[in-house]
């Protein structure tokens, strides 16, 4: 352990004398490993445990003498062990606070006595004895130890031959054990280090460069400034001085956020943290860490500056859009890019070498560390970047902003094929358990339960026994309460997982069955799942799916179902062809011709299919797996299984379908395979979970109109409506209300729902429900409100008040739905009165300030009927302070839907002359004119309506002409949409009151187009077109008249 301790463990840099171990995860892991080694020593090597150390290990302990029980002589502040060496000296001697121990046996016992303190004791011991090997075995062994491994063994053997006494044999055994531990620790810490490292100079640089781009004065920027402390960049991309690079530090930056003091930040391999800041006099940096370690700069800044995180989230939208646009092109080019990339990197590294050589003259001495560092990082780089994306996805919003912020990072993404797949496979419906949660070893301070030792014994039989002993041990292990975490972790901690997985690779069917039965149980634990994947258990299980023994297949599938609860595992299943095999399991009943072999390992085909479905359900949470299931022909098989009546079977089958129905392909297939019929049938099941999944599947599928009709035709609306009344199970209620919402998009369905009194029930659900339910309920009411009759029902059962109350929420989806529903209600003048009284219009108006464009647009649409139907609307609108200006400014938005909706609002506002005057003052004319060049028919229609309305004031007609709005309007007449034609003709008619506009229209060929419109069956359009032509004609006549007179 000497080497590991000196090289891997992170000692505090500052200390003189007794150094202490820094509190880092790596150190903790090392100490724990050592502790576990010592603890198990007494059981594993009872003989060696009695060996007396050359020198005692000595340290200051916190143990209380009273803690020592039998086997020790306790007197006041001293404790002596009854175990003594040849000279009668005790092997453990405690005289508060110093403790001396001279054998592994006593060390083990001490740790056992220390209980909750044992981690601390172990750490204190390691800290006080910097060279434990020398103390245990004597100095000569230690020297050998320092040499390289091969000569070590040789010299030990040599030694053995020379002096043949038994003690040296034991010594050698211990030396070998320690050597092994050392190797283990090194490996372990390497694993740890490779997990820990996240940042490298490249990623840090990218982050900083990007942040620079978005820094500066002004409100929209994320930061005021961000700068490196040093301009000199080493060849490895680091800016930290070499002696700090050894600590893994990359560079230091000074960051000035808008709302905080200058922050001095250290970027290191381990992460990003605040340091002691720049000392004023010499520009030196106080390197000491002053805060928590964050995983990257953006995360740190988000934590430290509110404005930063706010503005970042604004940038986020823009960038994520950009990023998405980039995505599709990327995949096909992928392979080319990869090969290309490698050639570039190799060339780059050659260049880099040159640079290093150049630099050597100046920096010969300093360069060493920076070089070392480079190699250690680059070898892990690929893995790092991979992890980065993984992390990005998991972290949700926060991470997205980072990936969206950095095109540089996006380039990195292109580097590896895996990553692309990652991004594509990022399924929206995924509720991901946190994959990278820290690994808890058995709590060191917890008293090891008796099960621990019993399980350890059983694992020993698994390792050393033949088939018979193994089966006995497996059966006995199953008797433990495997649902209990202590047992689950105990199995892992004594190395049981490795053995269990190894057993799966043998030919012994019984051992495989026994092992899988245990793995199936303990894989309910998220940590164990990860360990199983890390140990390569999944590919083995996937292979077992081909086994001729059905019960073995079942167990493997069930275990996969448990393990594949997180993305990495699901990917492994897919990569090893697991999806195809699982789909094959669904294909039951066809092979009934098999010999009637009543073997012990057989189960029914149905059971096999059920387990297959269970595993597919877990796997179907990743997009790529959904595709794989479909390609493997899973849908028809699922459809067939759906016809059975076993609930155990139906739940996973419907679960899988529901998960997959988020994909368009699936929805089409579901319709084609007549699955809806069976989904509807199972809504009537007794099982709540089954009902929930069926409703969820209907919710997903009912986006499609035919599907909505199918639900009705198969009588699905009635059970849905009746399920609405059962509000205890919130998950099911959310699914059911979702299905009701989507189904009520079809009018016929709404009529049915009215028959079933579902609308009244929905109104009842507007209060005291979780948001997931509310979104759906309000969405459904919004659809119902499209009909007059239903609006009355909603008003009569008091639905308006709770709806208006929901306008103050923050959930985006909910707000979109609520505004829509309120808007639909406002069509009814009587309802409008209630809304007005509840101040609903003001609430709607303030939603125009919501950051989400969907909410803005939806609120604006809802305002239109409000203004139309409010009594004394003009006065009401004017009463909102700053309201008109707000609306006019929304014309600067870039979102077409927002623009169209705002135009519609302005059309309604402008009906009031006084308000029209106000918005004219706010510059509505130039803003509208600027929008005129658009191809979006919806916007065109509402824009034309607004323009025609705004012409009614002052010299606005002339102003529109001056702002060149007329020519584009004429082009609208070439659109295919009659609504656009009507609105445009009316606008042109208004504009043609001005002579200059008439000339522009004529020049742009309006007359011919308008002449066609006169022949339209739409009377309003006819009239407007005719009026416009007559204005143009009249002008022409007047000119002619003037010319001839």
């Amino acid at each position, binding site marked *: 352990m000497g080497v590991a301790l000196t090289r891997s463990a992170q000692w505090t840099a500052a200390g003189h004398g007794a150094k202490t171990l820094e509190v880092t995860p790596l150190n903790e892991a090392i100490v724990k490993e050592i502790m576990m080694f010592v603890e198990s020593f007494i059981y594993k090597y009872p003989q060696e445990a009695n060996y007396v150390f050359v020198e005692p290990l000595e340290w200051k302990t916190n143990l209380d003498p009273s803690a020592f029980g039998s086997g020790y002589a306790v007197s006041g502040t001293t404790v002596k062990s009854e175990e003594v060496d040849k000279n009668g000296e005790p092997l453990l001697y405690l005289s508060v606070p110093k403790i001396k121990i001279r054998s592994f046996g006593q060390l083990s016992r001490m740790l056992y006595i220390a209980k909750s303190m044992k981690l601390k004791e172990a750490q204190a011991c390691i800290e006080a004895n910097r060279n434990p090997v020398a103390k245990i075995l004597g100095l000569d062994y230690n020297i050998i130890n320092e040499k390289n491994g091969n000569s070590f063994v040789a010299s030990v053997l040599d030694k053995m031959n020379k002096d043949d006494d038994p003690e040296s044999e034991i010594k050698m055994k211990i030396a070998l054990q320690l050597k092994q531990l050392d190797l283990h620790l090194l490996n372990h810490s390497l694993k740890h280090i490779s997990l820990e490292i996240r940042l490298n100079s490249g990623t840090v640089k990218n982050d900083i460069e990007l942040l620079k781009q978005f820094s500066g004065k002004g409100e929209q920027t994320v930061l005021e400034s961000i700068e490196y402390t040093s301009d000199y960049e080493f060849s490895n991309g680091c800016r930290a001085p070499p002696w700090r690079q050894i600590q893994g530090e990359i560079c230091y930056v000074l960051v000035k956020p808008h709302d905080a003091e200058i922050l001095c930040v250290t970027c290191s391999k381990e992460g990003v943290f605040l340091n002691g800041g720049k000392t004023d006099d010499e520009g030196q940096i106080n390197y000491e860490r002053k805060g928590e370690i964050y995983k990257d700069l953006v995360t740190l800044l988000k934590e430290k500056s509110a404005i930063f995180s706010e503005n970042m989230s604004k940038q986020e939208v823009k960038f994520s859009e950009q990023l998405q646009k980039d995505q599709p092109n990327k995949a096909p080019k992928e392979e080319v890019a990869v090969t290309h990339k490698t050639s570039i990197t190799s060339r780059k590294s050659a260049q880099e070498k040159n640079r290093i050589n150049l630099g050597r003259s100046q920096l010969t001495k300093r360069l060493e560390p920076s070089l070392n560092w480079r190699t250690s990082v680059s070898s892990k780089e690929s893995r790092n970047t991979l992890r980065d994306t993984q992390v990005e996805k998991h972290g949700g919003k926060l991470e997205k902003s980072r990936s969206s912020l950095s095109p540089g990072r996006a380039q990195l993404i292109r580097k590896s094929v895996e990553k692309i797949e990652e991004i594509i496979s990022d399924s929206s419906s995924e509720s991901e358990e946190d994959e990278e949660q820290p690994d808890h070893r058995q709590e060191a301070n917890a008293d090891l339960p008796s099960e621990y030792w019993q399980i350890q*014994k*059983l694992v*020993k*039989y698994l390792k*050393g*026994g*033949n*088939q*018979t*002993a193994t*089966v*006995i*041990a*497996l*059966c*006995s292990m*199953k*008797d433990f309460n495997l649902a209990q975490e202590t047992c689950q972790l105990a199995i892992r901690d004594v190395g049981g997982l490795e053995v269990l997985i190894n057993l799966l690779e043998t030919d012994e*069917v*019984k051992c495989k*069955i*026994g092992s899988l039965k245990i793995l199936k149980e303990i894989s309910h634990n998220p940590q164990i799942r990860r360990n199983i994947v890390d140990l390569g258990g999944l590919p083995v299980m996937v292979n077992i799916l081909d086994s001729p*023994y059905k019960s073995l297949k079942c167990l493997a599938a069930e275990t996969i179902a448990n393990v594949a609860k997180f993305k990495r595992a699901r990917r492994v299943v897919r990569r090893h062809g697991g999806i195809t095999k699982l789909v094959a399991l669904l294909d039951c009943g066809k092979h009934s011709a098999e*010999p009637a*072999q*009543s*073997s*012990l*390992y057989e189960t029914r085909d149905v059971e096999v299919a059920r387990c297959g479905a269970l595993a597919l359900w877990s796997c179907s949470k990743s997009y790529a797996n959904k595709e794989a299931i479909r390609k493997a022909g899973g849908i028809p098989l699922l459809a067939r299984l759906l016809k059975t009546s076993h609930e155990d079977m139906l739940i996973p089958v419907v679960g899988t379908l529901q998960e997959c129905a988020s994909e368009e392909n699936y929805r089409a297939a579901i319709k084609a395979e007549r699955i809806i019929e069976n989904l509807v049938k199972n809504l009537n099941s007794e099982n709540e979970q089954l009902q929930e999944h069926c409703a969820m599947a209907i919710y997903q599928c009912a986006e499609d109109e035919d599907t909505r009709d199918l639900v009705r035709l198969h009588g699905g609306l009635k059970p849905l409506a009746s399920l609405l009344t059962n509000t205890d199970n919130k998950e099911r209620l959310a699914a059911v209300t979702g299905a009701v919402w989507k189904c009520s998009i079809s009018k016929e369905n709404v009529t049915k729902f009215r028959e079933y009194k579902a609308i009244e029930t929905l109104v009842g659900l507007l209060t005291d429900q979780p948001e997931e339910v509310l979104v759906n309920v309000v969405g459904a009411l919004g659809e119902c409100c499209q009909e007059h009759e239903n609006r009355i029902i909603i008003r009569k059962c008091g639905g308006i008040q709770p709806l208006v109350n929901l306008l103050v929420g923050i959930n985006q989806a909910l707000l979109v739905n609520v505004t829509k529903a309120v808007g639909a209600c406002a069509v009814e003048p009587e309802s409008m009165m209630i809304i007005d009284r509840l101040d609903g219009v003001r609430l709607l108006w303030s939603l125009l300030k919501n950051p989400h464009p969907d909410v803005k647009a939806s609120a604006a649409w809802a305002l239109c009927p409000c203004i139309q139907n409010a009594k004394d609307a003009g006065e009401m609108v004017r009463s909102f302070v700053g309201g008109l200006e707000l609306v006019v400014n929304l014309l600067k938005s870039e979102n077409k839907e927002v623009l169209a909706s705002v135009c519609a609002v302005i059309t309604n506002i402008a009906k009031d002359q006084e308000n029209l005057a106000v918005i004219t003052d706010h510059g509505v004319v130039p803003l509208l004119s600027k929008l005129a060049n658009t191809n979006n028919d919806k916007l065109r229609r509402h824009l034309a309506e607004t323009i025609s309305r705004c012409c009614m004031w002052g010299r606005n007609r002339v102003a529109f002409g001056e702002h060149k709005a007329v020519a584009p309007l004429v082009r609208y007449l070439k659109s295919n949409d009659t609504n656009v034609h009507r609105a445009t003709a009316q606008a042109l008619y208004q504009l043609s009151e001005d002579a200059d506009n008439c000339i522009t229209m004529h020049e742009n060929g309006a007359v011919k187009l308008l002449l066609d419109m006169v022949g339209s069956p739409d009377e309003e359009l006819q009239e407007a077109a005719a009026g416009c032509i007559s204005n143009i004609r009249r002008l022409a006549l007047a000119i002619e008249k003037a010319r001839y007179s």
Partner: protein
Amino acid sequence: MDQKVLKRLVESISKSVNSFKKSEIECLIRIFHNLVGRGDIKLANVGLDRNTFRVILHSVFGMTDDVLMNRVFFAFDKDDDNYINVKEWVKGLSVFLRGTFEEKLKFCFEVYYFNGDGYISRERIYDMLKNSLHQQSPGEETDEEIRELVDIALKKMDYDNDGKISFADFEKAVKEDRLLLEVFGPCLPEAKSCLDFEALAFQHILTSSF
């Protein structure tokens, strides 16, 4: 061989063995004769001796454990005359190849308690398990470990806590976990060897039925 005698024999055996068709029983009888090595013997009084039977168990059914193979022999040999006669042969194979769960359960128990008083005692278990740990030297330590393993097995299966396993104990334990059927060592052939044997033994029927 005399067809009449054969027919009569088939008839009489088929009364007590249901899992084989008559044609299959005929095949098994033929095989028995080939194994015994004499085609013309008086059918009732000769049979396979222990060594021949062990060779069969080993080569056809892939068994390896000598102790257990002996016991399987005795489990086949119902009348304890140290020979397996043709009836015992067919009956035993019916359990081997097509035995129901209950039949196999009974068979295994017979193999394990062998010659005892109807119980599997601690000593018997020790005998059966003593070679079950891979250890270089069967020293003191291994012995201790095996005793512990015996304890574990007893703890698992001895429901009435009388220190031995009765048939009721055995039945209950195995029904709870079928893996325990061959708990003290393999005494039934693997499914694959069964299929192979059947394919080989009954190929004559399969081809001639067309």
